[in-house]
């Protein structure tokens, strides 16, 4: 892992910025890349302590964790849905702002 972690080159960093939907022009990429490399290198400590155990074995399971039965249930009708939501106005559901519209 260590060798891989140290290997953040310019192209990799550009790809990371793209994945993050961030513009290279919006930041000092040289400083940011250096800081990212330094922090990622710090993650090398994990190699000394990680094992093969399944992380999820650490959490106890309860009946609440079990999936619900595979029973098909009819969906609520829109009129019934409207009765149980307070976020309803002028015949429509209120939604977060989307492209300048909504409530």
């Amino acid at each position, binding site marked *: *892992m260590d060798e*891989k*972690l140290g290997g*953040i080159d310019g192209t*990799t*960093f550009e*790809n*990371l*910025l793209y*994945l*993050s*939907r*961030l*513009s290279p*022009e*919006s*930041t000092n990429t040289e400083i*940011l890349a250096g*800081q*990212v490399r*330094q*922090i*990622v290198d*710090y*993650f*090398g*400590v*994990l*190699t*000394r*302590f*990680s*094992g*093969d*155990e*399944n*992380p*999820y*074995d*650490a*959490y106890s399971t309860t009946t609440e964790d079990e999936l619900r039965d595979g029973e098909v249930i009819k969906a609520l009708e829109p009129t019934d849905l409207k009765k149980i939501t307070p*976020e309803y106005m002028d015949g429509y559901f*209120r939604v*977060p*702002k*989307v*492209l300048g519209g909504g*409530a």
Partner: protein
Amino acid sequence: MNICEMSFSGLKAKLESGELTSLEIVRSYRAAYEADNLTSKPLKGYIEMYDSAEEAARLADEARAAGDKRPLLGLPFAAKDNISIKGKSCTCGSRILQGYVAPYSATVTSRLMAAGAIPLGRTNMDEFAMGSSTEYSAYGPSRNPVNRDLTPGGSSGGSAAVVAGGQAPLALGTETGGSVRLPASYCGLYGLKPTYGTLSRSGVVAFGSSLDQVGILSRSVDDIGLALSVMAGKDPLDDTSADLDLSSLARLEGADIQGLRVALPEEFMREKGLDPEIAAIFGTACDWFRSRGAIVETVSIPVLEAAIGCYYVIALSEAASNLSRFDGIRYGLRKDPGEGYDELYVATRSDGFGAEVKRRIVIGNYVLSTHFSGDCYKKGMSVRARIQRDIGDVFGKYDILLCPTSPTVAFPLGSKVDDPLAMYLSDLYTTFVNLARIPSLSVPMGATKAGLPVGVQICGPHFGEERILKVAKAWEASR
């Protein structure tokens, strides 16, 4: 009687006895806030103090006169800027959420308000709770009431500043890796990070969803018990919330320390960065437990050495995913170059996020990409499992785990802001608690020769809030 120096539970007693009105209390805090803003180094703990608080206080006083007996009636509280209150701005200390108004209240704030409490204002924070000093807030940093050239800690630094600075009797913060306990330690307050699941996360803006938990900052142990008694309990809006009844915490009695089994993690004690003055104060705290008959023993938990690395791998992966929703379409700021959606996303996020958030998103996306990082995330998860298992083993033999909250006291504003790794190491003693999902209370246990507060954290097993609060109550009563 100085209202602004009183505790939340102390004010409750004065309201119930008729010695004070809610309006007097709210006006006192507003006067303190306004006077402080005129000083050369204001605390800047609040991003906004609500004008609506006085009217709510008037209504609370009328309700009390009419026989209303709700447990928190007329008591004000402050809430961090990432906890929703319906109709109020909620910006997470970020430009990208400017103008966003919460369409509903978080379960924690709605339960406080249902019990009669009054929101006083929203408090400053590191952007999206990413930081340990409030210096990464888009609104600028808050100051430490003990020494205004120092940070109050972060990310819930604004909440700590208003409570310690006499501008609120109690405040809500949030924790992902120490963001309540660290400011509590730096400002001389009590700060609780509850067990993951004790409090609902509904309406709290997500940072690292497997780690996030609402916390409480106060001047006394009773205040935390009181707030917790109202806020805890199953919430259908958060499947990770636990079905608990903590109403008994509204009245706390100190624990009997005789025979209490106390574990001290030796890895933290030999940490090179531990301030000798903090080590000495921690030693005094250990002596206090011994003098009352506790069995205090050192334990070795080697995996704690990897807690910070593990925390940042997991927290930043979850942050990169959670913050992908801030795209300029659904919330707050929008920068539209008119060239298509992708360009809109990039322009909005590049302009709206600050440097630290960008840094963490980039690292999170690195970790999440097996192409770039290999099995880094899987290793992080594996180490987390080991931390959870080893901490669980400790609580099989001991009642509480005791350690300093921070290796240092509050540091000067500006001293770490350009060194992210140094800033991350402020959380050296706190992140394992979030990774293991256990409760921990930072207790003010003393001060350095320079008068700077030092906190010691009392950690308990899952859902051991009552135990750690009662132990802290015994300590508090002995002071």
